[in-house]
């Protein structure tokens, strides 16, 4: 039995020993904002915040998330009340194909929470674990800077 909180809501479920957090989040709990791109920790599409830190959820065994607080893109804002990073992503044109964006906004939120927004190089490094083939990295950086300015 594993108990975890996702976007503030508690869940308890039986998981297999080899089941990964991304599988649980996507296919058991239906958080489709969490994407899968390689299953090996290379692309970063499955990044979620676990106890406040970005993790590749394909590299986390579900039972290791027992007691953890997970946040996905679905959990940081709503259409009527977007998170500042989500707002900035829209305004700065950061969304191209959109596929890495749920992970990218979470990294942005983490960078903002960590107070990294003043240092552009640190923002770049925060995104090191996420591959965006559209090459929106500079847009991500601008978005985090802009979100910080708005706060």
């Amino acid at each position, binding site marked *: 039995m594993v108990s975890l909180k996702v976007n503030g809501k508690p869940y308890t479920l039986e998981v297999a020993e080899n089941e990964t957090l991304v599988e649980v989040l996507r296919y058991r709990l239906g958080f*489709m904002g969490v994407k899968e791109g390689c299953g090996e920790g*290379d692309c970063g599409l499955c990044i979620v915040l676990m106890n406040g830190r970005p993790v590749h959820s394909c590299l986390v065994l579900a039972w290791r998330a027992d007691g953890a607080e997970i946040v996905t893109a*679905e959990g940081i804002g709503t259409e009527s009340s977007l998170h500042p990073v989500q707002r900035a992503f829209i305004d700065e044109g950061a*969304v*191209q194909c959109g596929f*890495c964006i749920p992970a990218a906004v979470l990294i942005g939120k983490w960078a903002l929470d960590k107070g990294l927004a003043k240092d552009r190089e640190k923002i770049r490094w925060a*995104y090191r674990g996420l591959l965006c083939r559209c090459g929106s990295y500079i847009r991500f950086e601008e978005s985090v800077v802009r979100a910080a300015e708005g706060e």
Partner: protein
Amino acid sequence: MDEETIRRFEEILKAREFYVVGKKVARVDALDAVLGRPIYTTDLLSDRVLYVRAVRSPHPHALIRSIDSSATRAMRGVVDVITHREIPGVNDAGSLTSDRPLLAVDRVRHYGEAVALVVGEDEVAVDEGIAAFRVEYEPLPAVFDPVEALRPDAPRIQEQGNLINHVKIRKGNVEEGFASSDVVIKNEFRTPFMNGLPMEIEVAYAYPEPDGTVTCIASMQNPFDVHNKVLKVLGLPPEKVRVIQAATGGGFGPKSDESPIDVAAYAALAAYRNRRPALATFTREEAMAVQTKRHSFRIVNETGATSDGKLLAWRSTLYLTNGPYYSKGHLVIQRATFHCTGPYEVPNVWADGYAVLTNNTLAGSTRGFGAPEAHFAAEVQMDILAEKLGMDPLELRMKNVLRPGSLTATSQRIDDNGLVMCVEATARLSRWKERRQEYERFNRLNGRYRRGIGIALLYHGNTLGPEGDDFAVVHLSVDPSGKVELQTGLTEYGTGALTSLAILVAEALGIDVKDVEILRPDTRAVRNPGPTVASRTTVIGGRAALDAAAKLRAVLDPLAAKILGCKQEELVYSDGRVMVAGDPTRSIPFRELVRRAIETGLDLRVEGYYKAPDTRWDKETGQGAPYNQYTFGALVSEVEVDLLTGMVRVLRMTAVYDVGKAINPLGLKAVIEGGSIMGMGHALFEEFILENGVPVTLGLQGYSIPASTEAPLEIVQQVVESEGKIGALGAKAMGEIPVVLPMASITNAVAHAIGYHIRETPLKPSRVLEALEELGIAYRP
């Protein structure tokens, strides 16, 4: 609408101050992405689906001696096995040319070619089923090099021989041109296969409807290409197959090509045969192996010029290494050959482009479509020439650039000044002269690092031109609340082009972009709009969107004029209202007008259409006007080379493009930055390596694409506007274009840093180090 009416309509739009065109408008679909809403194919699955994967050939060329699926069929969880014998319709999956079977019959021609499909209750069952599947192969002699493949004794890959096509340019008298040249240089350039590598892997989800229709939801660029092949494979009439494009996580060419047809046909076959929903996708490694690659090119350029830098003669020989099936190779070689001189006026040109079948994995459409490779060879050649002549590379270029009145290699007359505008702006923004001197001073310090600045220029023949019928269809309908629904088979997969269509419709109707709702592309709801390729959605699709808006206005104008008591010509649509020109007090909200129109029984559903003029050129000489208009651009790159490790870091890029008319500036900004970064990957590390036809760079650890920390620290950009002849409001193609120049521009910057032009990409550390050793400047601490 007739051409004259629509032209007048566009003139009217252009004459006033734009309402939304050219303003910073957010992507219409950005909200879904940032909220993580379920919009991609695998987000939309029903509870229990069948999984389908292919049994693939480990050989690059072999006969299939026998197939034994008995062990697979007997396995628990395996529901179905499908070989070519079980295909109910025609075994044809070739995107343009019917030369590629969906499932191999008696022979495989590349590593990873699909031989059979295993359908199972879950992925584990399918994988175990594949492992138990027995195929007995008899390996055949194979060929991987294009020049070897053209020898008479080379293994014949397809019946008709290994040469796909030979594209020629014959302009002026090239021998005389060389004879009168003071300087002649000849160099060979090479580029490797590369992966387009959209982050979302190819995927299709198909399910049977109660009426026998098979519906397929998938990630792709061209729903109608997929539709045409799936119905052929299933042997069903067109109305019994429905294809819907889900949100698509990146296209870059491969998703217009072979692999989306494959996954859709796999899923559709499984769903059709088993009467259950089915999902077909690839692993990342599998996707990288079977997805069409950027072609490998080998290009020899010979160039003659006067001692003061006037180009007199240019001879190019281009070999495109194709996979064993055509895909788009015959078209890619055409674009590469037509652009072989770069954007310069050369009076005498002779070019031969050959596309050649080999037993490498599939290659086909990839962002840029042969232009990045042609420009790499041309633009590095220009830099080598500048060095030989002792001229500044920028000065040499300015002496020869295409200006109004210039003739291209195909003798097409250029009539706009876009290129000169780009070069001048780039030189100014990049502080070309000062930085060049600054880096030369820096390099004289003889430290561990050297710096350089390089430039490259482009012209890009717009949209399909010689590559197909350049038409588009856009449907509009208005609901009683005043919301305009836009639906088309043209697709969004990252460039923001559908937002551009919404902007154009909003502009023409004077409404907010938020009041234009874009519905998903669905083959049942829309007419075939032609493919979403060649950066043509804003340019050509935009014209169809304006045509549709003009047709709506033709329905609404008489009613509005009657209500407002004015002439139809006096109507102005702006700010969500329809008003009388010069008297804004006499107006009616657009919404109200729509409501009354619907009450009156007017039909507010229209279909917009546009077809670009056919282009003409002579096949024997390549002479003519193959494209309707050209995009121009200039890119300056500044690099730092580590003389110890051979690593190249791009410090800054300065990009200026002539976009004709910026419809969607925010979208352009992202596309220019993103394309520059993708092109930087091509320049510095992307290389899909095969050893005797077997891929060795599978997976994201084997094949590197740019990460955030490798992107340039800064990309300075500007757009200039020199209106194109055919594009919507003068727009020119931009989706692919930013990926064209980085290979050339970065290579030239590295040459400025180290004093040598590397002629083969990528400029990976080992290759740069080799050059540094040769030059005797490798750093020894």
